[in-house]
């Protein structure tokens, strides 16, 4: 028996942000990248005093003695450093989309609390289109959702500049509109800047006695200002699923009877231009059948049941992440007829 049907066949794709008609899917579920916080937390805080002294023990005649040296003190200067990372380097968007939020993580890589000034630039040379900054164009991601929600607070330069402890980070959102009339596959970059208010200058620039406990503040490799870009990719993407089944009975025939095995093949085809983001394909185990353990494969590569089989939900599920237009993948799994 060979069953072959075009379309969903009880199979679902998720993670594809929104769908328009005819199965046209533009996908941009934000995968939280989970950048580690506090990576630089072990950095010695500015203003710390480091002291070292030696102890000498010795014997004169038969008398044990010991003396201690002086303890020269070193005060730790303030290191001014900052980093910005785009949560997504490439963001699928559609033409004329409004209020698209782009997440950036700002990290204080220095060793003293820093106030950070934020700036968005949409006019970046060398790409097909310029995104249009909204007013206001920057929000503080108060609820850490990586996307714009009503809880998020508009950024007002100079009045609510983020203050970051050493090693701490904050997610901020740039909010832009995409111009109408941009072609699928076109790129438009936006640049996000974070500038430390304590001082900006070439690496090694000294700001005398401005740090905690009166220590000097000195710019690190960032020079006190960091940039990150996010690439908007106009995407019009179709995700087509084509599912087929092959039945094999215990006697080698193709009769569907208790004990027969059904091998399913789902062809996942992405067409159009651009990128589908966070593509997830799931398919329920049919009634009156049971899943054959460890039978899920993606493009012929076996997948762990811990990841790909969800017994409670009674389905298989595989995640493809970002899939460019033009890609075809095959998901295979097997069941036995009860």
């Amino acid at each position, binding site marked *: 028996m060979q069953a072959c049907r075009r379309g969903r066949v009880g199979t679902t794709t998720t993670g594809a942000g929104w769908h328009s008609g005819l199965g046209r899917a533009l996908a941009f579920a934000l995968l939280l990248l989970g950048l580690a916080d506090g990576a630089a937390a072990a950095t010695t805080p500015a203003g710390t005093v*480091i002291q070292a*002294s030696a102890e000498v023990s010795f014997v004169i005649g038969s008398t044990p003695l010991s003396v201690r040296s002086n303890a020269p003190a070193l005060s730790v200067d303030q290191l001014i450093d900052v980093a910005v990372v785009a949560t997504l380097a490439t963001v699928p968007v559609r033409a004329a989309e409004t209020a698209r939020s782009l997440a950036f993580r700002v990290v204080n890589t220095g*060793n003293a609390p820093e106030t950070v000034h934020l700036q968005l630039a949409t006019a970046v040379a060398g790409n097909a289109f310029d995104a249009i900054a909204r007013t206001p164009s920057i929000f503080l991601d108060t609820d850490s959702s990586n996307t714009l929600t009503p809880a998020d607070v508009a950024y007002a330069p100079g009045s609510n500049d983020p203050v970051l402890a050493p090693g701490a980070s904050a997610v901020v959102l740039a909010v832009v509109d995409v111009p109408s009339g941009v072609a699928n596959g076109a790129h438009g970059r936006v640049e996000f800047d974070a500038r430390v208010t304590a001082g900006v200058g070439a690496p090694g620039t000294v700001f005398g006695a401005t740090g905690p406990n009166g220590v000097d503040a000195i710019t690190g490799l960032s020079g006190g200002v960091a940039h990150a870009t996010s690439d908007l990719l106009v995407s019009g993407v179709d995700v087509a699923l084509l599912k087929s089944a092959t039945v094999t009975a215990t006697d080698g025939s193709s009769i569907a009877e208790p004990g027969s095995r059904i091998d399913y093949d789902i062809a996942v085809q992405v067409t159009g231009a651009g990128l589908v983001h966070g593509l997830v394909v799931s398919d329920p185990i049919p009634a009156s059948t049971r899943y054959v353990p460890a039978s899920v494969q993606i493009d012929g590569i076996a997948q762990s049941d811990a990841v790909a089989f969800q017994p409670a939900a009674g389905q298989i599920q595989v995640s493809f992440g970002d899939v460019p237009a033009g890609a075809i993948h095959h998901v295979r799994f097997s069941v036995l007829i009860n």
Partner: protein
Amino acid sequence: MKKSIALLTLLLASATALAAQSGSILVKTVAEQEQVTTGADGARKTTLAPASKVLPGKEVVYTVTFENVGHDAANDVVVTNPVPEHTSYVPGSAFGPGTDLLFSADGGRSFASAAALEIHGADGSVRAAGPEDYTHIRFVLKNSLTPGAVAFARYRTIVK
């Protein structure tokens, strides 16, 4: 060279004042940082300059000078240096002429050579200690320190 003579003179001057109350050895720790300067001829020179300020990631060179200012030989001379808080030992940097080098990774309770030093976990596990584990650096003088003799030891730490 001039500088070291000046330092020695300074040591000798203060030695007489302190000798009576601090046994017969005078010990001094100096903290310095490397400075790279480029001369008029374009040659780069690395010199040690006294340090009072540091930045995370920078190395500090500690030099411990100990001198027998008494009238009798000092035996079993052991110089112990805690690795200061907020710093870690720079691997391979400890150096002391005529000394054996030992390290501690347990706050100075036990010492062993770098190759033999182990970390005993609370769960009974044992692993070799690395430079980042060192809490103390110890120099053990092989010979006695005769009256008037001066010895030194040096190590580096990096500010976290």
